[in-house]
């Protein structure tokens, strides 16, 4: 089983230096790409059907293809790596950032070349201190080696890359809010259309890709689209970093073929539930995905399959709910996070999430009323996709709506027993 993304990661708290990365074949893909016309590079990534690993699964090649090209396009163009990993339960980009920054940098340079961007940024979560150190060091090395700056690897292509460390709001992970934050403005999302590819950073055409997405790019260029498509177990190409947290025997992170089943991840890689705990449900792709329950365990974990059963692959990092943890408490915890992280721009998110969080507080405290369940259902409808300005609140509603569906009795018990049954 091939593990292109993680095979060289040392797992000892240090990252691959430029020398080590080059020894492992690093930057050969970049040199290869620079020999090709930009459109040909994009075509390879498009053929590989590399779906965005940030959660939405939009194909990277298609995004690059939309970048306005040619002399007439407004410039400078920008290419951004979104490393603001703050989704509750997600820690997959962290491994790539801390363990192999050059892989990301190479992917970023290839992507920038393919879209003819002039400037590139890595937008990093504030709490990733080790990653910041690693990236700073690796960007310096890449400049010194001539992989960044003018005449990259002897070509005519010029790219400058900077690391931007965010101040730490979940909102900044939303690609347009990220752009505002990068411009030094409030991290409010922007209305779409126009999409960043038309009017992005500083109003110029911009690509924003996730760290894991970009880390795949050097391997796709080096080995070809077919190779990539065959890495997976399903029609969607590549490997995926899957993670698990909660009361499993071995919480962790594994690079597995895309489409590995939920059961295999849970039972083989995470080692199954800890002794004395029963599996009750799982958020398959981070805090803003819908609960899956035991009957869903055989789902292949790819974008289309998880979507089909009413949840989302998201970041592919499982948050496991066991029978000794209160589902209402778990959702309450999540909704507090989302309420706090709302930027305050649109009404449903700004007002609806704190209200939701307060209702769940009341339920947990045994002060819930049956009407509260109607109000929670109202909140789910109210913050449905399209009703809000961005995806934050609809995402926040996913664990709630599925919990109301799967664990309705648990909610009602809180009301009838005037306390949390798990307390």
């Amino acid at each position, binding site marked *: 089983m091939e593990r292109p993304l993680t095979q060289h990661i040392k797992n000892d708290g240090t990252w691959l230096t430029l020398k080590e990365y080059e020894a492992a074949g690093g930057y050969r893909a970049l040199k290869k790409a620079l020999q090709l016309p930009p459109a040909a590079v994009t075509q390879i990534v498009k053929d590989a059907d590399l779906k965005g690993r940030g959660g939405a699964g939009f194909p990277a090649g298609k995004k690059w293809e939309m970048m306005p090209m040619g002399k007439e396009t407004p410039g400078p163009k920008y290419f951004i790596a979104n490393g603001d990993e703050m989704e509750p339960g997600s820690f997959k980009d962290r491994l790539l950032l801390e363990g192999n920054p050059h892989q990301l940098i190479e992917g970023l340079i290839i992507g920038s070349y393919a879209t003819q961007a002039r400037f590139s940024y890595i937008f990093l979560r504030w709490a990733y201190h080790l990653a910041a150190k690693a990236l700073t060091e690796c960007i310096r090395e890449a400049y010194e080696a001539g992989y960044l700056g003018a005449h990259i690897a002897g070509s005519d292509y010029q790219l400058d890359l900077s690391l931007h460390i965010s101040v730490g709001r979940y909102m900044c992970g939303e690609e347009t809010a990220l752009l505002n934050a990068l411009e030094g403005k409030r991290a409010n999302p922007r209305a779409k259309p126009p999409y960043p590819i038309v009017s992005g950073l500083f109003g110029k055409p911009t690509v924003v890709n996730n760290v894991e997405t970009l880390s795949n790019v050097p391997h796709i260029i080096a080995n070809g689209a077919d190779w990539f498509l065959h890495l997976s177990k399903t029609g969607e190409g590549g490997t995926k970093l899957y993670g698990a947290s909660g009361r499993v025997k071995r919480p962790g992170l594994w690079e597995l073929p895309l489409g590995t089943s939920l059961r295999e991840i849970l039972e083989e890689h995470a080692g199954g539930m800890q002794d004395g705990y029963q599996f009750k449900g799982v958020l398959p792709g981070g805090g803003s995905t819908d609960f899956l329950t035991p009957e869903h365990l055989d789902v292949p974990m790819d974008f289309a399959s998880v979507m089909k059963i009413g949840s989302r692959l998201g970041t592919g990092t499982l948050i496991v709910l066991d029978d000794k943890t209160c589902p209402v408490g778990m959702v309450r915890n999540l909704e507090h996070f989302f309420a706090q992280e709302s930027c305050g721009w649109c*009404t449903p998110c700004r007002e609806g999430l704190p209200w939701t969080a307060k209702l769940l507080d009341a339920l947990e405290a045994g002060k819930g009323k049956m009407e509260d369940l109607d109000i929670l259902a109202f909140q789910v409808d109210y913050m449905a996709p*399209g009703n809000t300005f961005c995806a934050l609140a609809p995402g926040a509603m996913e664990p709630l709506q599925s919990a109301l569906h799967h664990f309705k009795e648990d909610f009602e018990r809180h009301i009838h027993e005037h306390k949390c049954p798990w307390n």
Partner: protein
Amino acid sequence: MSLELTMVKIFIDEKAYEADGSQNLLATCLSLGLNLPYFCWHPALHSVGACRQCAVLKYKNEEDKKGKLVMACLEPVTDGLRISIEAPEAHRFRAGNVEALMVNHPHDCPVCDEGGECHLQDMTVMTGHNARRYRFTKRTHTNQYLGPFVNHEMNRCIQCYRCVRFYKDYAGGKDLDVFASHDDVYFGRQEDGVLENEFSGNLVEVCPTGVFTDKTLKRHFTRKWDLTDAPSICHQCSLGCNIIASERYGSIRRILSRFNGDVNGYFLCDRGRFGYEYINSRQRVVKPSHSLQDIRPITASGKRMIGIGSPKASLESNFLLRELVGPANFYAGISNAEGRLIRQVIGILKNGKVKTPSLGEVKGYDAVFIVGEDVTNTAPLLALNLRQAAKNTPGEQAAALKIPIWNDAAIREVVQGATGPFYIATPAATKLDEIATQTYRAHPDSIARLAYGVAFAINNLPASTAASLQPVELDEKTNTLAQSIAAALLAAKRPLIVSGTSLYSAAILDAASTVADALKDLGKEVGLLYTVPEANSIGLSLMTHQFLEDALERAGVSDGHAPGFADDEAAGGDDDDATADDDDMTAIILENDLYERTYRKNADAFFTRHKNVIVLDYLENETTRQATHLLPAGTFAETDGTIINNEGRAQRFYAVHIPDNEVRGSWKWLEGMQYRQQDMPAGQPDIAAGQSPEKAVHFDDIVDRLVTVFPEWQAIKNLAPPATFREGTQKIPREPHRYSGRTAIHAGANVSEPMPPADPDSALSFTMEGYAGIPPPGLTPFYWSPGWNSVQAINKYQIEVGGPLHGGNPGHRLFEPVDKGGGAAPDAAAGAATAKNIPPAFSPQPGRYLVLPLYHIFGSDELSALSPAVGERVPSPYIALNDADAATAGLVEGSWVEIPFNGEVHRLPVRLQVGLTEGIAGLPKGLASTAGIPFPFWTTITAHHDD
């Protein structure tokens, strides 16, 4: 900025409509007269999609019955679009959204100043939401002190973001912002303090609820429904912004913007909005010193009198004074220096070939060259509209990306705050410098030279067929600037040249029109706009070419001439020796304090030379103290009238109320003065203002007489319907139908309801009875429509939202450009005169300073400065010096200096002003202690040491 009209067919709740495809769906629905609630969208600020209140159901096609919620404000209107406003899902979402907004709203309507005219109340009712399910604690905020104009109550905030979008994005303010996040977002200043922006008062109207309210209104609070309102025109600068003035219990309570797309649109400046309180002053003259019966023997005796008119008074009042004393004896009560410049502007308005845009049209220009005018302080709303013009060229990038013009947030992201091309040439720094491409600091003569240089650069192009202009010798740097200004104006589609009279420079006025003419000769769609000092400066100066120093000279006051004033070929009037009637001279002074217009000793001498000094004025001042006969004149709030703004637009204002004292419009007093007492009908009450021997004389009669004498002003007869106009059989009520307590107001004196005052002068009534629909645009006293109690009811008065009013925007331009056919022979207005008009470059004189006026939005206008709230913002007097000049003279910030001039010595502290031209000192114009100083003048500045 493409405004192509593309008509499309759309379906709303299965009914077909024709709609303008360049608008968003919300604006379209509102324009179609449909009710769709909204908060964050504003017709001048456009769409950002924050509040989610305007949700409608959008169907994919005719077969789609399910639909999807979309926000109408962000939805383009395309052919075949199918939506539902009434679908239950859409209703439910909108009601739910208001419920969510109410989560933290305090529901304090009874004690909220906004109550009864609150957009939030209206929209809440519109959605049908009526019972709140939220049962937890509400979020609370602390409020801030924001200065004398605007009150802050943050707990009421529904986070629509309109305040910051207006204040920062539209008006260029820096000190109001949004802080914090999630349900804790806070709109205010970084710390308590006076809101700095000159347009802060618009927050009162832009805010959909009671967060930002009018602090001056708060001091004498009245609900909207209890106000008596009148359509009026702001009198506090020359732009003539349209206002609604409101009264209760005999005092004026507030000013609101009255929409006029050709003038001020939705907004007002803070001087216009908060400068009204002088009307309620204790210094008001409310009693005549003599009855008309006593005055008529003087005024109707046939003896010669002189009349001093006023740029603050209406055409009608000035006209009647002119008739009373005879045209030859009528003088405009402004300095000759000022009068000559205004006449020069009038000459260009009348004979120029370049279009003078309306204030509203200013927003559509895409390159600006300001020649010698600090518009933020002399014509504030022009500055606001110029800021919008500065966005047009950068905005073309967004248009190229096919971003619709209403998608404000997206445009902003593309444009990234870019402005220009925008050039400013002034002697001192101005607030608009922050958006300027380049600025030029120099003496007025050098500014004129720069502009002539620009004109030459344009004219010198091979493409120009116009007669050649005189080249100007400029230093290299200035010449480069002239070239780049010329290039920017030529590259623009619609360049605009802005200038004005504030620097007392004829050369500047001529140079500005020379630039405009040169552009016009190349076929450019150029605009030329001048500002003048006061509300009716143009109207007054159209009636006479004689000014104050002419009157002083006539009265034998010898040294009446101001510096910079050359002999006026037109001055003179009667050829008779004025001293013939020396011991029995009468002067009638209309709404004008001569001590604000000339030196004290001139004014003193003038009054000593007259046996009878008849003064009509609003407030006690030094001139009223010289009056032998004093009559209480009505301000714009107490009388009807017509004034002509800087653009040459005649506009009508109406009395808000008939005061419960003897204050009357000056035209009524003047009308009453001209008849001999013995001809008047017997048994007249002592006040016989507005009465002729035959009949009571009404406003329309005066207008008729006016247009007989000035036939070119025929249009002012039709500015608004005449007094005889009725909607059906009804007059237009000044009071809304919910006006309350009218039987109680006078109950202390008499329990019987008194007869309401009649208004024979207009088609408006002083009561709540009358026509309840939408009146003719010029007669609209307030905005109200069923379900729309707030100012946003204006939507219902417009043909389409943001567009002209039903019946057209009121007002009438008296002048249009004279088409002389492209590059025809040079005309008298500019070209030919150019060569001789180019002044020599200014050179500083060691040890002496040329003192130029500095203008302050709060302070340089006499009457608004007497309003307590504005008074708080008036600076103390100072003299501004450039750093280098101050250093040479051994002066620092705050040093006290003495400035001798014309026998008066002024003692002032020094203020260092970066960028002020060397050799020039700046003195605030119009402050109590600097009033009457004629600018510009040369002086010495010596340090004053207090011993």
